[in-house]
């Protein structure tokens, strides 16, 4: 089947497999992380038609023709090799997490949150991140990063 990921069409062999494995193992998009397989940790979060979903909870076939965005699809990559980070990525450069395994899920959750709520308060940030776990315990840093991303997104 065909899968639209980060603006590019890909041919996928194992359409019946959970999306997380198709992205990681077939397409090599390792920025989508496996953490629990039951939709409880948020590590495998991707954007499906702009909405955050747990990619361990649906198959590639169930995605159909809806566009998928993964961590790899956020930065703008110029023809000359320059990489311009998404405001959310830039905010996490300034407010980094530790081991980083949960980071893609938090980044993509924040991208979706800011798309519908450009100025979220702390409770809204925590609600959007439920349940995106972080075992290194960077929750306060994540809140700061999302608030900073909202600021960066508003800057001209």
């Amino acid at each position, binding site marked *: 089947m065909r899968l639209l990921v980060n603006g590019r069409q890909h041919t996928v062999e194992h359409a019946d497999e959970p999306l997380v494995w198709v992205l990681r193992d077939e397409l090599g998009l390792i*920025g989508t992380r496996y953490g*629990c397989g039951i939709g409880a940790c948020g590590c495998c979060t991707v954007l499906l038609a702009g909405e955050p979903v747990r990619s361990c909870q649906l198959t590639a076939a169930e995605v159909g023709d809806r566009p998928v965005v993964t961590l790899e699809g956020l930065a703008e990559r110029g023809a000359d090799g320059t990489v311009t980070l998404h405001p959310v990525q830039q905010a996490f450069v300034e407010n980094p997490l530790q*081991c*980083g395994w949960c980071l893609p899920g938090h980044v993509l959750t924040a991208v979706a949150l800011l798309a519908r709520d450009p100025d979220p308060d702390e409770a809204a940030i925590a609600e959007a*991140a439920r349940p995106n776990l972080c075992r290194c315990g960077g929750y*306060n840093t994540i*809140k700061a990063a999302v608030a900073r991303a909202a600021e960066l997104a508003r800057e001209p």
Partner: protein
Amino acid sequence: MTDAPAGDPPGSGPGRWRVTRRRLLIGAGATFGSLLVGAPLAIEYGRPTLAEWMLERGTGPAEIPESSLVWFELTGAGITLHVPKIEMGQGIHTALAQVAAEELRVRPDQLTVVQADAGRGFPLAAMFTFGSTSVASLYTPIREAAATVHAMLAIEAARQLGVDPASLTAVDARFLVTGTQRQLAYTDVISAHTGPWQEPAEQPALRPAGEFTSIGSSAPRVDIRAKLLGEAVYGYDARVPGMSYGAFAVPPRFGAELLSAAPGDAAGMPGVQQVVIDVPAGFAGVVADTRTRAWAAVAALQLRWSEGTRVGDRELEQQVTAGAGVVLRRDGSIRGALGQGRIVEAEYRTPLAAHAHLEPLAALAAVEPGPAGKVEVWVPTQSPESVTKDLHAAFGEDRAVVVHVTLLGGSFGRKGGQHLGVEAARLSAAAGRPVHVGWTRETDLRQAFYRPPTHTRMRGSVGPDGRIRGVEQRSAAGDIIWAVAGLPEPVRSLIGFDPGGLLGLFLPYDLPAYRLVNRREQLPVPTGPWRGLGLMPNTFALESFLDELAEAAGADPLAFRLAHLSDSSDDGRRLRGVLQTAARMARWDEPLPAGRGRGIACSGDVGTVVAMVAEVDLSGGRLRVTGVDVAVDCGLVVNPAGAKLQAQGSVVMGLSSTLCERLRVHDGQVVSDNFDTYPILEMADTPPIRVAFVGGGQTPHGMGEPVVGPVPAAVANAVRAAGGPRLRSLPLRP
């Protein structure tokens, strides 16, 4: 990228090595103009690997005086720092880059930091990353080596410029000639260099702390960009061309052994390429074209296991019971002390708990065909040396074994010995292709080793003057170090206590009488090191009991602690400092409304002392932690932002243990095997955590574990202060 690819060094390896007066290893690279400098630590066991690597290439002297643990590689493209210690989120690669940058006179972001790789001859033993020691142990060696590298560059730069080296200053990887507009970049110095490098006549002076521009500043993390772009490679991400996916059978109960195995329906299942059975080795596994097909096929193998244990969690926790044991302290007359004053007795328990690092265990292996084929693995491990030993044990001592360390998606002690490299290699050898094995969350939580349960009985007395007369402490815990160290059981029994259980075990207060009896238990489920080892469970008991004594004395818990800390000991003074700072941060003396309360606790570990005040709110009918104020004295702080993350992260992990975690074992197997049944703390329950660093000093101490120590006691003490019950077992359930 912090992940070093496999392969040869730049060019064809160092062309020539010599040993300097200061025991640095210096190799002039075959690549024109490059330079490699290694800094020694006084650890001998890394020598053979490095010597072999150099002799194999005909590059070095036969005698290597010291292991070379930290390497600077200078080429016309820039300076690379090969860090032996492993990054699992602690931020050590960033902190150590700052330390090197300071003496090199470069910005940390002008260094490329990579994980030292055994494939390039770095000694394995030096890589073992544990016990919050990385920055503390490498701080001075890296500075000295970097200062020497800088001096060598300066001598060469002066020669190229035709000036006196004394006329050069350096900033941001460039030399400036004093009083002129002339300057020369380090990369140009290296590129234009010919002939041997000249060493400085004496060890260059290290920069005085007052002139630091890098150490003590919050440098950006060196690995964050790769992690944000999806380019960072963890163990679960390791890939090579032509790779398949493997899975192997794991016992249904702790202690069960494989009796027989047959392919069953697995061989004919879709995508299955190989069924691998080796009953004497206790191994049965499959190789398939996708990961989920490998998982499905391994479940279809026909396996018979011995029964193993049928133990449950309550039974395990009861098995750990404080009583007779090894007397570790006997100060003053405890009988006399407990025969007077007001007697307080209490017992405390902590349960089995998991590390629950978010990246489950994984490994990639590529085994070359034939009985002598090279065994190459990529593993997220804290100890590539133990992985190497395991591979030699499985494949023969003569086999060439190369272990590459990937990034670790969290570890907290669990990835110390990481055996999946062996299973992946068994599958790769049988299938004749590279095989990646990654565990499901369920397997990861069922097949781990765990933080052992603890039980502590405390008995103390307080005199009418409000002072502690004496304390008798009886502690028991499942094994920690003995569970993973290769000592025979008779020796462990003879020693009688587990060294890991000693962390946080001793009351740091001035007591006229103190008796401490400790007991270890070997349990039928695997136990082992968890962040801080005994520190957090022991501190929970001791610092809760201090509050119970203070309550009996009618004293304020802070004042009571301060009154019992010695001013004549360094530890006493430092604990006093952090207690007073944390109390000030939390406005300890300001009253709180009904239903709310503050609790204080402190501990010391790896040279670092910590105090914190937790504030709780019971008014909503449940226990909510509303804020934590932490004061830390960890000596010199290399990277304040990184150290703050470590402190906050330790508080969150401690709160998770305090409020959420208890591993459930039923019928010999873990039944809380995913985050629905083994919940960990979420963002919504994480309070503001304020951190202050106090004390300072000439050198850094550990920051990976110490802050986890006081968390449960601070919260339990706050619950009591808020008018709640005295809670004596984790997780706290008011």
